[in-house]
């Protein structure tokens, strides 16, 4: 068998084996079905909830909250980060404030956000926007400051003026690190929206999982986990895809990690 075929078999076979073991363990009573419902039941439940539209409805609500908050947080975070990165006095003045607010877990200020924005959609979008804003402003500022000095020097040596420097050197030089920030922020946006929906929503995938707990239906919880994992994977892939479009000069993906032992 070729190395590649073996790798593929391992990559597909291991999860399948794990799920089979789980199923078996529940059936013989090694795993408590009240906490770990058998995969067969989880899959059947997932299918039923997709079929009757329940999961789709909650998923759409969560996705709209994430995208809305992320759009606001990312656009303002990138704009503010570019300003902070290029204007030194502004950076020096605001850096302590931003760093202090950055380390504050955003879930902690959820009650305050609800107090200000009420119980409706606005508070959920606002908390996502706030959480993503701080990650992105910090990453964007660092990205601008981290542009290799040799590129700035080359730009000036060839007579680039302020706006030209920004468009031709600073922005493209900072883009890779800005995208790292976007990817991080989107992951955080998912966490924050689920947490907000746990405590303060009547819809959304977080609410759905919380409700499944209240009604003691673990298989529905697991169906919710599947949705969240899928959202995580899709959002990661989306940011990467956009990254490739925006930065065609970038290295293609490195070979997967842990490929040292193909001897």
């Amino acid at each position, binding site marked *: 068998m070729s190395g590649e075929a073996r790798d593929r078999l391992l990559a597909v076979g291991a999860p399948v084996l794990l799920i089979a073991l789980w199923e078996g363990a529940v059936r013989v009573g090694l795993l408590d079905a009240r906490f770990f419902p058998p995969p067969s039941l989880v899959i059947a439940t997932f299918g039923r909830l997709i079929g009757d539209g329940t999961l789709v409805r909650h998923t759409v609500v969560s996705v709209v909250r994430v995208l809305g908050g992320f759009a606001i947080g990312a656009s303002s975070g990138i704009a503010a980060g570019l300003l902070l990165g290029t204007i030194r006095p502004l950076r020096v003045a605001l850096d302590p404030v931003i760093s202090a607010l950055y380390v504050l877990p955003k879930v902690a200020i959820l009650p305050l956000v609800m107090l200000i924005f009420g119980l409706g959609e606005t508070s959920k979008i606002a908390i996502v926007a706030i959480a993503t804003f701080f990650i992105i402003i910090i990453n964007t500022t660092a990205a601008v400051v981290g542009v290799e000095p*040799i590129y700035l*020097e*080359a730009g000036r040596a*060839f007579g680039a003026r302020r706006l*030209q420097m920004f468009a031709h*050197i600073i922005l*493209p030089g900072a883009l890779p690190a800005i995208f790292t920030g976007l990817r991080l922020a989107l992951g955080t946006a998912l966490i924050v929206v689920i947490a907000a929906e746990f405590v303060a929503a009547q819809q959304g995938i977080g609410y759905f999982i919380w409700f499944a707990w209240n009604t003691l239906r673990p298989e529905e919880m697991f169906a919710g986990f599947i949705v969240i994992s899928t959202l995580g994977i899709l959002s990661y892939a989306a940011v990467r895809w956009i990254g490739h479009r925006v*930065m065609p000069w970038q*290295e293609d993906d490195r070979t997967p990690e842990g490929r040292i032992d193909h001897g």
Partner: protein
Amino acid sequence: MPDSRLHGSPSAEEWTAGAQNPKPMPPKIVISNVAKVYQGRRQPVVALDRVSLHVDEGEFVCVVGPSGCGKSTLLRIVAGLIPQTSGEVTITGGDRGKPLHSLVFQEYAIFPWKTVFENVVFGLEMRGAPRAAREAAAQDWIGRVGLRDFADAYPRQLSGGMRQRVGIARAFANDPEVLLMDEPLGALDAQTRLLLMDELLRLWDADRKTVVYITHDIEEAILLGDRVVLMTARPGKPKATFTVSFARPRGIEVMASPEFASLSYRIWEALRDEAIASMGIRTVGGGRRGMETRA
């Protein structure tokens, strides 16, 4: 102004403007008493100590010196990228609309987010050259450095030597009065360097621009230059000047001549003390020997 580009040495061209008023051609670059002092942590650090240097129109001057002697600092002052503490730099412009100088850095200074073409056209684009003219010039220079098939490639797809061809084309295409090169081949492997030296000679020979070329490599300096200026260890200042008299157009074959070897040795002898000084090593009985021509 007459075209003096075809002449190699300054003595060959006494420009006579009017029969009764003979005047020497003014140097293209005049560096007079340029000093650079950095504010160090405890005390000021003198990087350059009153450097004076003239470079004639069409002359290729190489500056060699131990690392940290301030030769790159000098080049950046000439390029107007950093201010000098005192002294003056004058570059005589000819054509209006031509940039005074263009820099060639080491090969990693080309923009990774721009294609070969976008890199080469950069200088012309920044100073607003008409689109048709700048695209023609860029294509021309991409062809001259042998990258015609790679015009739309990104730097990551190129080898180190190809990247530096882009860096060289970027500066040449800008058509400056003066070319300033800061160890352009310093980061390349030995074979690539030899190939590129040969190529640089050929490219330069086409229109013989005035060049100031920084290097730490003596053989590179002799092969390329009309004159080799040796700098002292910090604080840097010219210590000696060596005239290189190999005929132009020149090729890599001059490296095989005994004259090349003996000049190379003479420069090394002069450089050795400075290299040792720059490493902070004291030699036994290490007085500095008297040198040949003072700059």
